[in-house]
């Protein structure tokens, strides 16, 4: 009986110590995960900044004009046309059904009147 009591006591002490040690271990784990989270958030923010910088209209225009040889459409070169469903004839925007096609004016397009 005495031996059992001593063993029980030892078990309780062991559980108590184990619990304290485990708490510290989990604490370190939490801190490590927090650091990882912070690092990932930092990385996410850096990528957001990078994305925002790279997708700036000014940069896209610069790349398009200087690297890809594109040019801004001149006045009157952008025309909006609309088609009635089932018809191949374009009509004035004011009379058109809500199907819309945007076309950059080029050699395929006749002059406007």
């Amino acid at each position: 009986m005495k031996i059992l009591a001593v063993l029980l006591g030892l078990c309780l002490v062991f559980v108590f110590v184990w619990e304290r040690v485990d708490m510290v271990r989990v604490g370190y784990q939490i801190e490590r995960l927090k650091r990882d989270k912070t690092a990932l958030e930092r990385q996410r923010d850096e990528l957001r900044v990078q994305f925002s910088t790279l997708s700036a209209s000014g940069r896209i225009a610069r790349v398009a004009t200087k690297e890809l040889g594109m040019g801004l459409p001149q006045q009157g070169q952008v025309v909006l046309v609309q088609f009635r469903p089932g018809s191949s004839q374009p009509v004035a925007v004011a009379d058109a059904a809500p199907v819309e096609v945007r076309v950059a004016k080029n050699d395929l397009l006749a002059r406007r009147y």
Partner: protein
Amino acid sequence: MAGVVPSGRQYVLLLLLLCGFGVVLFRLVALQVWQAAELSVKADRQHRKTVSLEGARGTIVDRHGKVLAMNVEVPSAFGVPTTLDSPTKTARVLAPVLHVRSEELERKLRQERSFVWLARKLDPEQGRRLERLSLDGVGVVMEGRRFYPKGPFLPHVLGFAGMDGEGLEGIEHRYESYLRGEKRMMVLQRDALGRSVFPTDMTERSPTPGHNLALTIDEVIQYITERELEDAVTRAQAKSGTMIVLDPRTGAVLAMAVSPRFDPNVVSNLSPDRWRNKALTDAYEPGSTLKAMMAAAAIEERVVKPNTMVFAEHGRMSVAKTVIHDHEKFGWLSFAQVIQKSSNIGAAKTGMVLGEQRLHRYLQAFGFGQKTGIDLPGEAVGLVKGLKDWGRRSVASISIGQEIGVTPIQMVSAMAALANEGVLMRPYVVSEIRSSEGQLLKQASPQVRQRVVSPETAHTVTKILEGVVTDGTGTKAAIPGFRVAGKTGTAQKIDSRTGGYSASRFVTSFTGYVPAENPRLAMIVVIDEPQGDAWGGTVAAPVFSRVGEQVLSYLGVGSQEPVTLAMAL
């Protein structure tokens, strides 16, 4: 055993043991009882670390969610001078990494302090290089730095934040209370190696980040506006330029550009003049653009009709011992032609018939001489003199846009009222405020300030203003396929030396709206001191046309003109 008597040596040993235990006991009592309070404070100081944490400043995005300003964690370098053996050597090693002169670093490192900032808000690469150096007495901490990823884009509206993250200009300043993150002190436990274990109270939450703002500004429209304005300012060799694009139905600002621009990431060397938002802060004499509002007042009050004939005195008319000139020698003109050809004499005569009282009342109704209420800091009220201060020429002068000071935002708001069937709206730039979790906290809705003129009058004035672009002084504002209504303005600047009007310095402008029959855009272009052919119709009107065409195309607003295709697509 009973007969054994301890020897002398044993007594000595016992005495020594007793003394030893006595010392230990004494020390225990000293530590645990007498010095307990003091030592427990010391222990707490070593085990616990109180850190000041600040939630990240909120993000600013355009109306499509494109990031315009956000916080990024960047490294800052600090030194602990009291622990350094050789400040000179440390400063020499640090100088090329931090891009700071070694003498300056050495001066900081020689201070009798336990903490000094060496360089703050560095590039991440600088931080990594610094960590690789692993110098004694030098450390790196992460701090939030405000970053404007698009560089010199929308700077006068966004403003900028200072080194400690406080908003100093623009939206950053106006919405400081929403953008700023919560500041909290947090207690952490440290182990013997100084590593953080966990907060003493596990339920302690991290500081809340600031709220996020969504603007009414459209990144693409802003880009087009900035590019075209800058181009015009450069070509005209002008001092500066301002352009605003509004949605006249709501008052939402789609673009607001001031040239020259600046990069809000680098403001330390700039004078305040560079970051002042001239669209709100600088009043100018509007010149002939004000004739549009005078015309609306005269028509609303039934003083004139578009076909009322006005004699323009062949280009010269005396008023109160001064002379008013026209840029051409006009004879009889219809009132519509007075506006379309921008006759000063015709407008002055109409204004005089309208009278001081009514003209003054309409100027106020259109919002001149008072703030528009736009949610940006530093707005000026402009200058509309009280009636008692009007001189004998004032009614004629004000009718042609002199003796009055307006800001570009006031003028475009007034023009937008004509586009909006006579209803004046409050312009605004922030459309939504959301918490960091995305919860909607505040949504701006269009605010009507007042009705200025009837819809019928607004339509009549629109017709007249269309004539300005088709047959008048503003033909270069025309946009193929669209009906444009607007008015040119060319005003002489005041010469500070003589107190009179300068013969060589002008403010040229064009303000109007498109499409005239169903306005989607109200815009103003103001070019300050252009050189050469300095007329509103030649300098400012083309900018209106180029921006208008591109923005209408971008918004998918279709031309009203029919189009044929050469072949089936």
